[in-house]
């Protein structure tokens, strides 16, 4: 392509006149102006690009920061859920009949052999609370019997 254009450019130069020269002067001023505006334009474009770059960086950083906060909060939430689960499990172990019965026995308690029912209508007592002979006194279990009732 370059070869073809240079072939055409040579005859064109021969037709240049004075008017053309004058036109050239004004066009030189225009060129100066356009060169200035081109510089401004370049600054503008670079500015825009820089701005876009910075804001995109900023945005990414913010997102990343949010992601970190999110993962931190998630971790905290997970830890708390685990703690809650552990505590709930401890409670269910402690309140299981196996544990309650063992602890009651350690306190010197024994299963009640027969309940007594008090009828509020006529004050009758039906059935009998059977007294139990303890194998060892309650205090021997290291417990103050008075405190148990509290």
């Amino acid at each position, binding site marked *: 392509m370059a070869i073809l254009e240079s072939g055409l450019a040579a005859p064109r130069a021969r037709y240049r006149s004075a008017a053309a020269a004058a036109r050239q002067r004004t066009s030189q001023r225009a060129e100066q102006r356009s060169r200035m505006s081109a510089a401004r334009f370049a600054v503008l474009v670079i500015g825009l690009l820089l701005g876009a770059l910075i804001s995109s960086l900023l945005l990414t950083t913010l997102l990343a920061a949010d992601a970190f906060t999110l993962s931190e909060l998630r971790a905290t939430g997970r830890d708390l859920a685990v703690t809650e689960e552990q505590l709930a499990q401890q409670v269910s172990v402690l*309140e299981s009949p*196996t544990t309650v019965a063992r602890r009651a026995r350690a306190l010197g308690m024994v299963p009640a052999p027969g309940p007594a029912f008090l009828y509020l209508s006529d004050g009758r007592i*039906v059935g009998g609370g059977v007294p139990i002979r303890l194998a060892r006194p309650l205090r021997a279990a290291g417990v103050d019997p008075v405190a148990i009732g509290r």
Partner: protein
Amino acid sequence: MTLIRERGAPARQRRPRRTRGDFRPGNPGRRLRLGLVLTLALLMVYGGRVVQVQVLDAADVSTSAVASRMREAVIPAQRGQILDRTGAPLAATVQAFDIVVDQTMVEDAVGAAGGIAPIVALPRWQVRRALTGERRFAYVARGVTPAQWQRVRDLGVPGVFGQPTRQRVYPAGAVAATVVGFVGTDGHGLDGLEYGLEDILAGEDGLLIYEASAGGRRIPTGQHSERSAVAGTSVRLTLDRDIQYVAERTLARAVRNAGADSGSLVVIDPATGQLLALASAPTFDANAPTASDPQSRRNRPLQEIVEPGSTSKVITLAAVLNEGLATPTTRFTVPGVLYRKGEDYRDSFEHGRLPLTLTGVLARSSNIGTIIAGERMSPETFYSYLVRFGIGQPLGIDFPGATRGILAPVGQWNDASFPTIAFGQGVAANAVQIASVFATLANDGIRIQPSLILGYQPPEGGIRAPAPPARTRVVGAEAARTMRQMLEMATSEQGTGSAATVPGYRVAGKTGTSDRIDPECGCYRGYTSSFVGMIPAEQPRAVIAVILQNPRNGYYGGQVAAPAFQAMATYLVQAMRIPPSVTPRASLPLEW
């Protein structure tokens, strides 16, 4: 392109004519044309490749490009809990950690083992062995609590990592272990309801797909997709954890006192057919199933069949009463030996001719009297009652390995079938089926299919009840009431079950002693001793069945099983707040 054509055209004019076949390599026109062809060919290959990559295989290629950055992570579904009727957990899933090691990174195995071993409660040598070697992945300890892992992490041993995992725990330990079962290390059910209800409990694992950097770190702005895990459904059982615990202890004590091999104890609420306790002895700790004998993991009340023996006399006599063929005071003359079709039948005690009423036949547990009374009806009629009472029929409880018992169809009965089945031999049932017979009488003759599951609790909330249990009228309300009075006489001073009485309460029940089927030899060896009863007799709130296998310290049901019934009933009247009986005990003559 243009350039080549422009320069090529004048060259053709200047070229001198040549004859065909006169090929000179120096010819530039030809060289150029050749070059052109080669270049075009090359470009076509490139172009084709571009088309192939960008158009034809575009989808595949972009997928594999994305795949090289995408990571997948399975989000394990939370397994449903198994709860008792009050909502107390029998099986739950908690967060746990597997401590794993890259052995090539460990520098001081001995020192590290000294720090880790006491935290995870393992012997020091075992931890040291796990830490030493050339393997990039090995387990040090599995299923430790988050607190334990935290302490191990604080030691800062290089190469030791924690892998989050879920662990199944059984807060009540051995309580209801043979009902609940247990899971394997992969978290899937292996036995009991954990196995039977696997589909309901398991839920559905979720999947997290995200874009990650080469180092495996998640790219915050990258694409990701998440399919949430669907938690499993929790199952609420009809069992009561406290009643179950007492039932297990009571049974264990009875088995020990009687020197028995094993035992079953069942508690049913007759008004609903719901099982309140399903105890089995021996049992095991569900938190350490591998440490137990497989025999101790059986759920005997559902999986083991026994010949019910005398407890099944109530079916024969209830049928006779309901058919109107006898009353509680109908007189029978019971000989010492009864001959039927070449066989002779005897009672458990030697006697001459006894003048017994129908009540007396039951209370004294006379085999001969039961046969004589039963012969008032046809085998077909008797068979229809056995079926309606649920003998040999599927229980309707979806439990792995649950048996339906053995009852030969009436068409296949031989000469000995009718008399032996009349007093509970030659027929087999599990403890729940036997308890259900008494629950039917306790519920005024209406049999409610026993149930073990109270409801399903899906993760989204609410509670879904299972299909209502089948209800069938087996005997009339009057016949059922009369049977209860006769059973009350069986626990009187003159009956065989006097050891079952609870002071202040009317108790109805029946002892049973039968030949035990030994699964090892498939023969009869030892005895099966049982007591099945209800409290209070006038308006039963609970039916309790106790069955002991091969007791050695005495073998009569009234001797070894009735005390366990009494202990259980004494607890139940307190736990279920059953007031003492105010009406007088039934009084029916046993002899005439």
